[in-house]
């Protein structure tokens, strides 16, 4: 009922209304990525590598995350050092902050709903604006990776160098022994999972509240550092947990049995399911929306 006509207008309005926040978040994402590139350069210097990192190396360094934890920590024979990947964590937290900034607050949402005259158009416009913002965010991160590759004289290829895993503390025992690894699956997984998480955050915001949705997503991202499970979608965005780098079966090590790496198809299927469920559930919530579920009188 007018949805197809109105949602592009709601989309344009939402994109324009959130442009300050989007610019700030994109700038922050670019800054964090630049910081990670500088860290990579310093690590190369410290380890006396004279090779220029390729685009794939830089992308995987930015999305390194942390080594996969063993499923049973009780069998640890040596305590592992906990190194929080602050760069990765900051990138993920900024991306979910971006979503909570783009999603309209309760008063704003009421105004847009009444003006659009259609709950469906309103929801379509909002989730599309959130998706566009998330894509812009990752584009700004990608632009920095590209600029850093060019600045360091590296090749513009997604193939990664053999030195990368050791430089970023990936769990050595579990590394694949293939000759060529690619950063492309990591990029695609990150993009798909990030979009799925953004849509899930929108649906949670519609169901409860922007702040609750932000807190839930932030908690899930933080938990994914310590628990390796594809359903904690932060895992899908870590290069160190991708099957591109980590073998696909469980591996016995001195630290216990490590979980297998997550394959691209698992990321794709999970991201698609979460995205679809979030779009449908969010649409149903907004369609039946009664503001009293939000505002207590």
């Amino acid at each position: 009922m007018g949805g197809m006509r109105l949602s592009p207008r709601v989309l344009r309005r939402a994109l324009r209304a959130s442009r300050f926040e989007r610019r700030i978040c994109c700038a922050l994402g670019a800054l964090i990525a630049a910081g990670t590139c500088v860290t990579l350069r310093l690590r190369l210097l410290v380890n006396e590598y004279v090779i220029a990192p390729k685009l794939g190396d830089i992308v995987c360094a930015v999305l390194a995350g942390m080594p996969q934890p063993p499923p049973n920590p009780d069998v640890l024979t040596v305590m592992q050092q906990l190194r929080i990947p602050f760069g990765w964590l900051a990138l993920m937290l900024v991306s979910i902050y971006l979503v909570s900034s783009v999603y309209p607050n309760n008063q704003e949402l009421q105004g847009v709903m009444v003006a659009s005259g259609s709950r469906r158009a309103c929801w379509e416009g909002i989730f599309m604006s959130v998706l566009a913002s998330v894509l812009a965010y990752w584009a700004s991160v990608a632009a920095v990776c590209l600029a850093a590759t060019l600045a360091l004289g590296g090749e513009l290829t997604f193939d990664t160098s053999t030195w990368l895993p050791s430089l970023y503390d990936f769990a050595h025992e579990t590394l694949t022994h293939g000759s060529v690894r690619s950063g492309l699956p990591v990029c695609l997984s990150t993009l798909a999972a990030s979009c799925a998480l953004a849509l899930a955050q929108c649906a949670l915001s519609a169901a409860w509240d922007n702040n609750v949705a932000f807190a839930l997503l932030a908690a899930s991202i933080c938990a994914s550092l310590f628990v390796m499970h594809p359903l904690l979608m932060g895992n899908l965005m870590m290069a160190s947990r991708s099957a591109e780098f980590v073998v696909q079966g469980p591996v016995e090590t001195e630290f216990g049995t490590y979980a297998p790496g997550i394959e691209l198809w698992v990321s794709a299927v999970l991201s698609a399911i979460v995205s679809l469920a979030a779009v449908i559930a969010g649409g149903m919530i907004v369609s039946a929306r009664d503001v009293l579920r939000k505002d207590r009188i």
Partner: protein
Amino acid sequence: MSYLDVCQVSKQIRNDIILDDVSLTCELGEVVGLEGRNGSGKTMLMRVICGLVRPTSGTVLIDGSVLWKDISFPPSAGILIETPAILNNYSGLDNLELLAMVKGIATPDDLREAIRRVGLDPDNRKRCRTYSLGMRQRLGIAMALMEKPQLLILDEPTSGLDDSGVVELIGIIAQERQRGACVLVSSHDKEFLDSVCDWSCHMDAGRLAPPAGKDG
């Protein structure tokens, strides 16, 4: 048939009856007032009429179409309920432009005119975060007016306005009546309602008392 027809609307939240069998009609070119104490149900009734709250029972008809059935929201409505939704990082005119983008029917001149009507300067590029309470209220009224709606709903529009603002608002409501809008105004200020409304109702504990002044 009236342009706005509220038929035996009730709203119950858990055990609290917020609206109790409320019926109300309003024609185009008519200004109806809702007067009552805080918590009497004025805002809730307005939210029901806007389509923001689903009534427990009863129906709301806008120009013959049933809310929550034929239409989701009134097709041509300007609304000010409680605090206006203002984006603090933008100027007053930007805020109007952003909201007008959704429907795309208000021209740039309409937006500037709406801001002028409420006593603000459309060329003031200051961000709204610097606006006083009264200026925010004026901007909220401008947002409600800008698309020349057929249904104008103003909940406590004098809140935060100074004396000159109230006088300007009385003039604006008179102009809207003349334009042919169906205007519903709520206030706890009976004197204000008497000066702008064709007739007004008293609300108490979710019930509407018989209208006063409808025939006079």
